[in-house]
């Protein structure tokens, strides 16, 4: 069909832009061409996807005569693909806008080209993500997936001169290979029965129960390692911050969503009728991920690393919603399943918006001050007012404050959780209660985390000379932040039209929409369970909050600010000539109570105070250590096992001819025996 041809042409155009970027890397116009071309292609695809969702109609499908000769490349864009195409390309547009300004700012600052080949790889990364979303056979899907992984890996490597990058890139490559291997096995199991790798054939032949269970586990491992499910998240906080900021935004805000797409595609679409325990396992992973992710985030001093850990938390929330949807789909209550899945999709969109926004803000801070360390920022609300306001919107949205979009997503999710009593499985009822409590805890801690981030970075006094002399970033960067910020507000106030837009995708996956059987559903009102009880109106919320804020501001100004107060000139040593203002409350101070409450058991966090003896003039020192249990439990045993295997396999290099022959002979005999047995 010609319609998908448009998307394919746009992807081909991205490749052309990449080639142009590689050819003209040194020219001053290169960033304009690359980012402009990428934004145009992304806008085209996003527009097509939105029209496709709004207009309905048959799926656009296309078979390209490339790829393996007997398979070819099947492409197809159904409603689910369209939803994620919008998410990916919206992220692509804003990241291009921001990246263009970022590139120019760094170009001006450093007087030369960027330190790595970002320009040619950036459109390739977006092309890879788009290809994953329209792939309709296992081969094309895995090829696109690997292409996406490698492009993002190279983008991480583009900052290879920084000391932490090689380690991050190596770990990322390891985890990406692991994830792809799991997906490969999963699709192998899915296609075993009939040997046809197209999604249509897989969908038509649902695997047996045992094979399906294996696929569920493999998908959770494979896509989960890309999305950042605990305990496979270890690469994320290293690799995401290492890339340039607009690429970090894409990796954290958008690429993890492609992993979510893979989970939805397999669990809801390809595997057929779900069983209740799939959802239980998925939810359990999600809850663990949400709580652990935010606890990690609370202990970070690096802005971008904090944001990467916060992505782990948000992915946890999305995966919880997916698990709920699976559970309710298995329990044959499709409307509630649609509600949970709607919450998941809404959170996917929301997170891509505010995480992009926050990574852009981190990039702006990096451009202005040259530092990502919270303890070297501070007071930037005076120096960078626009960035401060936009970052405040992002921080409030990710903390799920009304009337912003983060609130709506979490609220919908809790509506689905509150429907748990409708289930018949007792173990699930209990699990959902626990998961709900964990999610509430994670949300509250996320609030604390972003108060900490915003308060330390933007409020108070500058903590370094660079922060004191920071200047506001350029117009393109501010615009790149403003677009997602505005969308955060709009989606928070009016979420219903977006959910209506997503309804075809929900019908495709759970055979129901979230608004089925609800008589009262105007476009400004969100009432998924009942018209009178649990309902949300963003407009009323916005008006009430605005009115209360005005009253509060007026009250403060009338009652408090007009009185002149005098006090003794003692500022705890605060207002000396020292620009670092070392006596301020630091990021570590802010995180300390929560670190003590949770971190001492989970992360074995310890505070060490080095107090000098009386009379000694050296300063006292406080040092904090903590360990990521995922390193101890997963990564280190894994790397030890790989090393051990490599050591064993190494011996195979030094055998005699006869021993090699013996190995081959035994392998042949074993295979023949297997054939003989299976032929019975």
């Amino acid at each position: 069909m010609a319609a998908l041809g448009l998307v394919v042409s746009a992807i081909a155009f991205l490749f052309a832009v990449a080639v142009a970027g590689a050819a003209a890397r040194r020219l001053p116009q290169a960033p304009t061409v690359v980012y402009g071309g990428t934004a145009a292609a992304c806008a085209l695809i996003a527009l097509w996807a939105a029209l496709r969702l709004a207009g309905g109609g048959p799926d656009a499908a296309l078979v390209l005569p490339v790829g393996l000769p007997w398979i070819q490349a099947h492409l197809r864009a159904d409603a689910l693909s369209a939803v994620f195409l919008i998410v990916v390309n919206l992220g692509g547009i804003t990241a291009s806008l921001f990246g263009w300004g970022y590139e120019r700012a760094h170009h001006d600052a450093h007087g030369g080209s960027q330190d790595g080949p970002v320009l040619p790889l950036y459109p390739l990364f977006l092309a890879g993500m788009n290809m994953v979303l329209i792939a309709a056979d296992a081969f094309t899907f895995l090829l696109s997936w690997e292409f996406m992984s490698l492009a993002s890996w190279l983008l991480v490597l583009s900052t290879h001169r920084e000391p932490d990058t090689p380690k991050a890139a190596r770990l990322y490559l390891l985890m990406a290979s692991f994830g792809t291997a799991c997906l490969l096995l999963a699709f192998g199991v899915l296609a075993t029965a009939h040997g046809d790798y197209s999604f249509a054939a897989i969908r038509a032949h649902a695997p047996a129960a045992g094979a399906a269970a294996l696929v569920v586990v493999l998908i959770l491992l494979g896509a989960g390692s890309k999305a950042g499910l605990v305990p496979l998240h270890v690469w994320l906080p290293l690799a995401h911050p290492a890339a340039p900021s607009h690429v970090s935004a894409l990796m954290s805000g958008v690429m993890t969503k492609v992993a979510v797409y893979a989970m939805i595609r397999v669990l809801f679409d390809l595997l057929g009728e779900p069983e209740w325990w799939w959802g239980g396992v998925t939810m359990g992973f999600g809850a663990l991920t949400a709580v652990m992710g935010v606890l990690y985030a609370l202990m970070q001093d690096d802005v971008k690393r904090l944001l990467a850990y916060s992505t782990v938390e948000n992915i946890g929330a999305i995966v919880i919603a997916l698990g709920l949807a699976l559970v309710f789909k298995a329990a044959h209550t499709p409307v509630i399943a649609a509600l949970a899945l709607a919450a998941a999709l809404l959170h996917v969109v929301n997170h891509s918006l505010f995480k992009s926004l926050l990574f852009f803000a981190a990039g702006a801070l990096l451009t202005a001050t040259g530092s990502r360390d919270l303890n070297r920022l501070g007071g930037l609300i005076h120096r960078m007012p626009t960035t401060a306001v936009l970052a405040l919107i992002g921080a409030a949205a990710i903390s799920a404050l009304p009337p912003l979009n983060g609130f709506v997503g979490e609220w919908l999710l809790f509506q689905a959780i509150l429907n748990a009593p409708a289930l018949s499985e007792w173990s699930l009822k209990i699990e959902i209660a626990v998961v709900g409590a964990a999610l509430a805890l994670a949300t509250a801690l996320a609030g604390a985390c972003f108060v900490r981030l915003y308060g330390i970075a933007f409020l108070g006094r500058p903590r370094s000379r660079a922060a004191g002399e920071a200047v506001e970033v350029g117009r393109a960067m501010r615009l790149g932040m403003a677009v997602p910020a505005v969308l955060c507000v709009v989606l928070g106030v009016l979420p219903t039209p977006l959910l209506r837009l997503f309804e075809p995708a929900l019908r495709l996956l759970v055979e129901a929409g979230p608004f089925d059987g609800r008589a009262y559903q105007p476009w400004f009102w969100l009432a998924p369970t009942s018209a009178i009880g649990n309902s949300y109106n963003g407009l009323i919320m916005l008006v009430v909050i605005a009115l209360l804020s005005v009253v509060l501001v007026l009250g403060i100004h009338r009652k408090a600010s007009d009185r002149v107060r005098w006090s003794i000139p003692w500022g705890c040593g605060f207002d000396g000539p020292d620009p670092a203002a070392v006596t301020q409350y630091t990021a570590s101070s802010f995180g300390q109570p929560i670190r003590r409450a949770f971190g001492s058991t989970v992360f074995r966090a310890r505070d060490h105070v080095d107090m000098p003896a009386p009379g000694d003039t050296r300063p006292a020192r406080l040092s904090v250590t903590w360990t990521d249990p995922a390193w101890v439990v997963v990564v280190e045993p894994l790397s030890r096992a790989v090393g051990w295997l490599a050591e064993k396999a190494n011996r195979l290099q030094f055998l005699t001819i006869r021993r090699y022959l013996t190995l081959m002979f035994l392998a042949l005999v074993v295979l023949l025996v297997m054939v003989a047995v299976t032929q019975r």
Partner: protein
Amino acid sequence: MSDLGYDAAHMLGAVVLLMSFALLYQRRLFSLLNVFTMQALALTATAAWQAYSHGEPHLYITALLTLVLKAILIPVVLHRIIVKMKIHRTIEPALGIGLTMVAGVSLVTLSILLVLPVTADATALTRENLALSLSVVLLGLLMMISRRNAVSQVVGFMSIENGLILAAVGAAGMPLVVEMSVAFSVMVAFIIFGIFLFHIRERFDTLDMQKIESFRGESD
């Protein structure tokens, strides 16, 4: 005719397999070569018989090639090499003869179990012939790994090739057999020389221990 053709072809194939077993328990190189010559002769007879009974004259060429190369030329050359290198007593089985025979019998069982169900649609002759030739191939492999001596490994390899040709002549109407047998024979010749060169190099390396130790940095 068809009954006689079937029986004779079956019997000749069985003789080839029997010679494979005989190869497995030979303790002396000269008798090994003699048994191999007998296997090649049996194969020649099979090819000729198939050519005659199916009326496919190109199989005569195969038979001729087998006779000249396998039954005359290669045994003679190997015989000379053995005499020249004075290794006619060293057969060095890596696996005990009894165990080897047990393994050989299990391999034949395996190949019959494997081939008969797989080729349910084919003619009886093809099925049995395939089972016999797969057994010969597997026994040849077993021989290669159960002997330490290079000559017996070469003989094992060539008996593998005999099994392949047995399979090829059994399948009705295969025009490529001639070319295949020529190509295989040339390859075998190369492999014989390759293995001998390898062994000589290995001998040189192991002879000159001082040199090796200085390479490994073990001498002071």
